[in-house]
């Protein structure tokens, strides 16, 4: 291990330009990946916010007693999919409608709006099928007149979400593959630069594992360094977008660490592939 680390340091010192080139190449391919991740993250965040607004509104028939509504409320909040439910009286419904309409509030002067039980579902239970199922259960109460949950837009939202997920997986996978190929190529340059040394090592009895180890460590270190640089570039870019365009969200610590781990893994796999291929040839 000590020898491998020393070899890596010597490798960096002997070919600083090539090492810098490798790190920069890795950084830029991970930067592209990072930017894409940032876009995907923010789209997802926006969709989550929209999804937060998914609500089932169950309108109560005229003449329903507060006790009946209380019983229904008690039942509904026990549904496993339900996050919370609120009883909205006729007065509250009117006040809310007037508030939402702002300057056109006069329209509701003297109007009577039905009372309702507004049901909010837990995250993960806001897909069209679950919303439909819960609505049907709520509708089963005899004093519930009508149930509304914006069927159309929930389905559209979910379709958009699915498209975003598939596009995310395909584009993310493509970016990862491209990064791996680029990293593999840069490590291959490092391997070729030391081809003579590798052939002599083999002649004096070095095992393949012994030859491979410093390259794997080097690839991993370059992957981490490239990852850090990519993170910095992504952070700066996001700062600029924030300042000049729109408020965006940055990766949390967990995703940041995963990103670095991903960089290290790309470096490791790229090196293993390049050295393996070279060792099979010599």
């Amino acid at each position, binding site marked *: 291990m000590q020898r491998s680390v020393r070899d890596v340091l010597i490798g960096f010192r002997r070919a600083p330009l090539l090492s810098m080139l490798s790190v920069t190449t890795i950084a830029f391919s991970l930067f592209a990946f990072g930017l894409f991740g940032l876009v995907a993250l923010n789209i997802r965040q926006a969709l989550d916010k929209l999804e937060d607004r998914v609500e089932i509104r169950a309108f109560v028939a005229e003449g329903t007693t507060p006790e009946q509504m209380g019983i229904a409320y008690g039942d509904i909040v026990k549904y496993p999919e339900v996050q919370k439910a609120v009883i909205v009286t006729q007065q509250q419904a009117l006040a809310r409608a007037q508030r939402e309409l702002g300057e056109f509030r006069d329209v509701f002067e003297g109007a009577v709006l039905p009372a309702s039980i507004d049901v909010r579902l837990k995250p993960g239970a806001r897909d069209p099928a679950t919303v439909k199922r819960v609505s049907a259960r709520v509708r089963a109460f005899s004093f519930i007149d009508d149930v509304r949950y914006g069927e159309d837009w929930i389905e559209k939202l979910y379709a958009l979400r699915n498209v975003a997920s598939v596009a995310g997986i395909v584009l993310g996978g493509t970016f990862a593959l491209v990064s791996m190929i680029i990293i593999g190529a840069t490590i291959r340059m490092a391997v070729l630069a030391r081809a003579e040394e590798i052939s*002599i090592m083999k002649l004096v009895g070095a095992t393949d594992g012994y030859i491979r180890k410093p390259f794997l460590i080097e690839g991993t270190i370059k992957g981490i360094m490239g990852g850090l640089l990519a993170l910095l570039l992504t952070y700066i870019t996001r700062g600029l977008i924030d300042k000049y365009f729109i408020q965006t969200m940055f990766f949390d610590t967990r995703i940041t660490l995963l990103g670095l781990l991903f960089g290290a893994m790309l470096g490791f796999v790229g090196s293993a592939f390049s050295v393996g291929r070279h060792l099979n040839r010599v």
Partner: protein
Amino acid sequence: MIRITHVSKVYPRTGTAVDDISLNIAKGEFVFFTGPSGAGKSTLLRMVYMDERPTNGEVRVSGTSSVTATSRDVAKLRRKLGIVFQDFRLLENRTAEQNIAFALEVTGAPQSYIGTRVSRVLTQVGLGGKGTAYPRELSGGEQQRVAIARALVNDPFVLIADEPTGNLDDRATRGVFQLLREINSGGTAVLMATHNLDLIRRQEFRTIEMNRGAVVFDSAEQHAAKPAEG
């Protein structure tokens, strides 16, 4: 020690390089391989240190068979062999000492042992004071001595030298050859491929002449055959 049994080597593009050769080389023997370029000398030697595997037949070196050896077995075998080339194959960015130490490092030898062993072997090849010189600062003969020192540092039972004097002038050739003789007199077998017929004529060592991939003359067989003729 080295047994070559019906060995052939055929390359897909260039054809047959070695054609059905069988040989035995005993412990401590000094053997010259001679013949024109393309005769198959280097290919045969490469099969001895298992850089190439025979297309047919078997090369067995100190218990390691070319038929069954894994890459790990080959690595272990090479630690018991010393290999020297015409073009020295030294690492330009390492000093003479570092080039020699390199061969010990890959075996996992302790650093303290490497230091003393390297200086001893440098003295043995007559380069006691030049350990810190880089290859470009040494003459051809001296570079070849460093390469020989690297080959000797693991105390091999056989030294394989492929045209070791091919790039050297007469004086350096004599010096390197003398060194190989000394190494051989210490009990290490030497297999040397060479074009230098002068060198061969002046010696009593076993000579194997090759042409077009086949052995056309083996002095050991002639010696063995002589009593029968008489």
